[in-house]
């Protein structure tokens, strides 16, 4: 079956531009996660959804970051007024349920470069 897909795969934005990153999770997966991965580092948690409810957004680095999943499937991560420090790979993952050791299935990521 289809895995997690993300688009675009690469995005170059000028400083100050707004960007929107899309994630299509595996069909039927309840939980959806966003991570930020800087070069040479492990993924850092940003936010988490269970269906359409955003249950944890403690990892969002600033109020310029906003995520939504209005119908409990596709999710969008929006970054307003991008800054150079936002340059990273943004990973989306989904899992069948939450908690209790469910593994996450990751998409290929969107590499954002802010110039």
């Amino acid at each position, binding site marked *: 079956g289809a895995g997690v897909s993300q688009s675009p795969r690469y995005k170059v934005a000028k400083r100050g531009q707004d960007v929107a990153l899309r994630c299509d999770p595996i069909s039927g997966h309840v939980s959806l996660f966003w991570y930020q991965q800087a070069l040479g580092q*492990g993924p*850092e*948690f940003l936010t988490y959804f269970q269906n359409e409810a955003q*249950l944890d957004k403690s990892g969002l680095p600033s109020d310029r970051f906003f995520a939504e999943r209005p119908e409990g499937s596709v999710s969008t991560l929006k970054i307003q007024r991008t800054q150079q420090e936002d340059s990273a790979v943004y990973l989306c993952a989904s899992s069948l349920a939450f*908690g209790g*050791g469910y593994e*996450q299935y990751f998409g290929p990521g969107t590499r954002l470069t802010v110039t």
Partner: protein
Amino acid sequence: AQKVTQAQTEISVVEKEDVTLDCVYETRDTTYYLFWYKQPPSGELVFLIRRNSFDEQNEISGRYSWNFQKSTSSFNFTITASQVVDSAVYFCAPHYGQNFVFGPGTRLSVLP
């Protein structure tokens, strides 16, 4: 914050050698899960293994095995008879409650 340490930044081995990747984590939780993920050059993280905190029985799955020691908060991962295709960055990822934390990763290079 609950911390994960992967002390080995980079490891190089020759094909067919066994290699062990170390992971030490900090937690105040009594119940949690431990994962290892692999990130090949293509960039997509791939789930490898999972262990829960209340079962310290070590297991083998194909060429993969793991050694979980709750008393020392370590969850080491071994690849037996390594292959070139095993070259990737490996992440240890404890899952505590609603937090899924990734270690900094160990870059494994398997040379032919």
